[in-house]
């Protein structure tokens, strides 16, 4: 207490000396660059194929009015695309769909769900948070809210030559979501029965905890451009294999000019292909080292005597420079 009130607690008093500045910079730089190289390597080892299909899949006569095409349920939405595998891809190969310019993070969208209802189903009837998709014809909707209502409903099937590639669509959501957020005894009810049909239908006989597409969809994305896991191809793909994709182009992104892409990607220990982390490490690391060199240079060219009383402002007058 004495030391406290007299303000004389033991303390270390770090004083930045040029040596400490330069050596810190160097050390940090040397620390960063290998990590960067490692991450970059991991990222580059990932093979990724991105196929945009939203405009290609619209028949020619509807190219000028895609919205009419997508809204007309009588027009078949079948579409097929062909991909060439550039490099050997080791299983599992992850299939993602990517939406651009889709605001899953809009405030109105994000809050339009009821986690209670997802978990407890109809027992939980306070679904005010789901407005404007909370009920239909006076009956509650399960799952309610804009998010589930706008569930993505394009479907994809893949063929190599004539063999259909088996797609595993299980275990695409985080386990915690499946186990705890979506009830095992909650079944879709009164879903997509309204005047407006938003997106995918749900099988009313499958509990929500098994509707993995919905679970994935409902983990709303952070940015308006996002990928969602669709499934896994559990066979290796050889280089130059041609993959044919048959898809149902149901989902309306044409109204708001969103893009749809299909992504096939392998995964490294770090995840999918993303050079950013590696590049950032390398950039920062080299920056640090360059700055350390600049500091050394400045120090050599323009040294200031360390702790020289003449440099104190009240002694400054007489000093030239």
């Amino acid at each position, binding site marked *: 207490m004495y030391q406290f009130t007299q*303000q004389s607690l033991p303390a270390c008093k770090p004083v930045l000396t040029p040596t400490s500045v330069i050596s810190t910079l160097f050390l940090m730089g040397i620390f960063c660059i290998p990590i960067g190289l490692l*991450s970059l390597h991991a990222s580059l080892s990932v093979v990724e194929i991105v196929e945009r299909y939203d405009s290609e899949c619209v028949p020619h006569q509807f190219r000028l009015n895609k919205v009419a095409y997508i809204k007309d349920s009588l027009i078949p939405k079948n579409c097929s695309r062909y991909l060439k595998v550039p490099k050997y891809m080791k299983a599992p190969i*992850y299939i993602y769909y990517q939406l651009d310019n889709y605001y899953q*993070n809009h405030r*109105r969208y994000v809050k339009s769900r009821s986690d209670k209802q997802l978990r407890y189903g109809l027992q939980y009837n306070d679904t005010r948070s789901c407005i404007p998709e909370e009920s239909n014809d006076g009956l509650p909707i399960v799952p309610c809210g804009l998010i589930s209502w706008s569930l993505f409903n394009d479907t994809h099937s893949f063929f190599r030559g004539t063999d259909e590639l088996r797609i595993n669509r299980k275990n695409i959501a985080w386990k915690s979501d499946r186990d705890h957020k979506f009830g095992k005894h909650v079944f879709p009810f009164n879903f997509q029965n309204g005047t407006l049909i938003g997106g995918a239908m749900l099988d009313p006989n499958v509990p929500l905890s098994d509707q993995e597409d919905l679970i994935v969809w409902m983990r709303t994305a952070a940015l308006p451009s996002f990928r969602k896991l669709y499934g896994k191809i559990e066979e290796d793909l050889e280089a130059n294999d041609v993959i044919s994709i048959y898809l149902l182009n149901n989902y309306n992104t044409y*109204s708001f000019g969103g893009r749809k892409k299909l992504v096939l990607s392998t995964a490294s220990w770090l*995840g999918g292909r993303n050079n950013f982390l590696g590049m950032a490490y390398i950039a*920062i690391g080299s920056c640090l080292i360059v700055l350390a060199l600049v500091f050394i240079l400045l120090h050599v060219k323009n040294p200031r005597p360390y702790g*020289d009383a003449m440099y104190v402002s009240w002694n400054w007058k007489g000093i030239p420079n």
Partner: protein
Amino acid sequence: MAGWRGSRSRLGGGGDTGGMAMTEHVSSSRTVRLGRVQPQAPGHRTVFCNDREANALAKFKGNSVSTTKYDVLTFLPKGLFEQFRRVANLYFLMISILSCTPVSPVSPITNVLPLSLVLLVSLIKEAWEDWKRFQNDMAINNTPVDVLLDQKWISVPWKKLQVGDIIRVKQDGYFPADLLFLASPNPDGVCYTETANLDGETNLKIRKALEKTWDYVTPERVSEFKGEVQCEQPNNSLYTFTGNLIIQNQTLPLSPNQILLRGCSLRNTEFIVGAVIFTGHETKVMMNAMKIPSKRSTLEKKLDKLILTLFCVLFCMCLLGAVGSGIFINRKYYYLEFSKNSDAQSNPDNRFAVAALTMFTLITLYSPIIPISLYVSVEMIKFIQSTQFINNDLHMYHFESNTPALARTSNLNEELGQVEYIFSDKTGTLTRNLMEFFKCSIGGEIYGTGISEIEIGTAQRNGMKVEVQKSSDVTHEKGFNFDDARLMRGAWRNEPNPDLCKEFFRCLAICHTVLPEGEDSPEKIRYQAASPDEAALVTAAKNFGFFFFKRTPTTIYVRESHVERMGKVEDVPYEILNVLEFNSTRKRQSVVCRYSNGRLVLYCKGADTVIYERLADRDNELKRTSREHLEEFGAAGLRTLCLAYRDLSSEVYESWNEKYIQAKSSLRDREKKLDEVAELIEKELVLIGCTAIEDKLQEGVPTCIETLSKAGIKIWVLTGDKMETAINIAYACKLINNSMKQFIISSETDAVREVEDRGDQVELARFMKENVKNELKRCYEEALQYLRTGSETKLALVIDGKCLMYALDPSLRVMLLNLSLNCNAVVCCRVSPLQKAQVTSLVKKGAKRITLSIGDGANDVSMIQAAHVGVGISGQEGMQAVMASDFAIAQFRFLTDLLLVHGRWSYLRICKVVTYFFYKNLMFTLTQFWFTFHTGFSGQRFYDDWFQSLYNVIFTALPVIVLGIFEKDVSASLSKKYPELYKEGIRNTFFKWRVIAIWAFFAIYQSLVFYHFVTASSITGMNKAGKMFGLWDVSTMAFTCVVVTVNLRLLMMSNTITRWHHVTVGGSILAWFIFVFIYSGIVLPKDQENIYFVIYVLMSTIYFYLTLLLVPIAALFCDFIYQGAQRWFFPYDYQIVQEIHRHEPDASKVGLLEIGNQLTPDEARRYAIMQLPGEKSKHTGFAFDSPGYESFFASQAGVFVPQKAWDVARRASMKSRPKTSRKN
């Protein structure tokens, strides 16, 4: 009832009836304004002494006093109102209300909880402070006092007193209310009061009861007293009172002379009996009590500006977002179901409403940009600083009076680090108000071996430690600090000039107006003198063997030792024929006395200038050496007086005395005529020598002043003393020295006097104004010349109160300010308390510099309250200054520690804390802002509610408080060793807009790093299973990075890292992880469980760890480089000092033990004398307080001056003579 009817009949002819008076009293409004005499309520009050029943009808206020702000009922509404008067709280209230509406993107708890916490804490603090005030009031209200009940003195608490009660106050007791003085056991019905609490004057005032009431001393007798007092309504004028006492059908006029005011104390009088006239809040002192203005520090005001800027930034950000949302909203985003039927914020047909509502949404979302915890943290830090550090600092603990420093407010700690002007009172602050006979020069020989404080100071400044050790055999008593064996115990008989010595001593013993009191033995006698100088001189004479022990109106008795031969003691009477009194024009005092052998002598003492003019033209050698001695004394800061005598022949005297009697009995211009007559005899004097009295400085004052001026602080002395005294002290404190150019603007010039004598007030005012204007102009031009030539000459301004009155006129004020700001020292003398405050606010408002006032008396209160920081000297009797002050210290010298150590540190700490808060919240909010661009400007929050609300409260709260408490750039001893470091505070180096801009820059940079690094690296599959992150994963990742970085940044900015830094920084980061582990691990009863399991998901990926490593490095490396480069190429002064002393252990503890002194007293003395200025100074140090002046301010205000001490004394000893009408 009888009393009421009785009063009616008695007052019948008075025009005003008692009944009316009562009703008027009840209805009279009690609006009291400060500093002014408010118009008196019409009518008067009638008090029936010793008759409670009669007074009961009038419903006078009780004597209990309450200074509390609240009571039980008003506490909540009033307290809350006070809280919401702070703009910041209002802002948070608004945000809280907004967050309860549907536009809010965050849950109300985010804002309501912190606000309620803050309000709760503030209210508790208010309640606690009020409780303390209440207890203080209770203590005062319960002080016992003797009241006459049933012919007995009964002790009752003050609060039970009623108007009309007869009470008895004993010696040294305080008067519980405004009293009518009835009787005291002293002859002539006088009593002595000390009014230090009212006007700061320590000399005793004499009050005199009406002759009619003198004998009401015993309780039996007093109970017969039935008087009726008719007097003015309560008012706040301390120096006036009008009323009548009706006793035995006689109406006697009352004057202020019979009134004893609450707050004064009784001295030198066994007890007094008085009747209560005004009670409680109606007493004059209470009506003068002002509400202590609440002061806010300059830094806090600047903080307000910063907050305002932040608010503008917030507004711009919100506006941008709102416009964006108006543009964004479109039916095409069908999945968002924007439609007419949805709420207004999602109605695409009314884009304006959408934008407007989004505006509110965003304000709520970005509200943390102005953190509520800032105020709480800063207040907490300041509270700890003041209660733990300032109040407990051993460097500021005064051992002798057992007084530690006391921070009475915690608002102004950092203001102490930026003070540029100090306004100091003199008496009691710089000096001890203790005059000691110190040296003398008799017949060209200096006696006295002491070293004055200033000489010690000079020696110390030259690196020598001096400790004055008094040899034990030296007689030392109050007023006498003289040590020279050549004069003591009759040894003067062997000196070269024993006759002159004899004259010297006799002059001291005879030529004065002192009254002896008590037994006539040298040990027990007490001298009652109007000025401490006189007492010191008479005490000196006593110690030299010329013991003045008795005074009758015509004779002074002196017990002289060793005069004829060694060891012989005899009582010698001297007949006092005339006393030519001291006044400020004459600057001298003479006594004509007749020895028992018939010798007629005129003894004279006075200023060297006036005495030298009147010396006989001989003995030029003596004059020359004496003058040198005078100058030497003056340079040593001593107050000098010249002594001279003249032998008169009886013819000369008789003829002169005729003229004198004539002058004395003249009715017009008596004073002036007396002065003229005095001139006739005070000539051809023979110089005896001179005395040097040390106006004892407080310990360490010169050193302290020098340190402070090195720190760039300018010190002004504002004193009610006379010019000579003030200049003298300025010399003694080393404020002024002979190498300085002095500008003296005085009203004591012949020209002014001439106009004064003509008596035309209008002309006088015009003349004075013109005079002051010309003087100012002349001085200013001269000062400019000095500045232009760039000479090193320092300037000093001395101005007296009267001139100041005109100089403070709005037309001259600017010139005065310009002149005084260019002066290194300013001395204002003869200034009234109001002028002290005016000068203070002139600098405060006119020059916009930070001012500090320091004083000890009630007359300094206005100045203390006017300055940015008020410091009171505590540990002495009067508490008025302390009660008005913000800080109380026991000694002036503690200012060094208070300012250079505590002030500087507080300033530094608060600056760091504020800028850090600014940085961390701006950065945090900006990450949200960048996110807004990617959410269609919807105002979606990036972070979870709880993250956002706990960010400031838990995850970053403690380290910044630790920073605010422990941060030290350099140690306390170095702060004092390099006072120049203080200039950084005066220049406000650490809280400039430039500094804030740099922080803002880094905040923007870091927020970009946080947002973009985290989001850009999270767009692809995140683990080997290819699973994707959602919004809450990304935001939790970003938040983790923010918490870690912000806490590390704090370590980077600390100059001192104690274990508490480690504990709190580590603890905060740990707290975040613990929180998020628990928070995301359990299911909360909420609608949305976004965060559920998020952290575990995150931590299952390698991405998490890589990002957590990368982002802080990327965010902080810029700051690191900036810090390195700044220190290297543009170092602050403190950084260089740090470097110089980098490897030294903290010396603050050593300072306390460092009392060792290697010099013997003799060596020290020799050294000190060696160090005296070589060139003889022009300053001779004359200073003397005129006796007989009651209250300078009272007389200035045109208020009746009661009798002079001298008159009273003379009359007291001439009881037989009938009462004469008092001369006015």
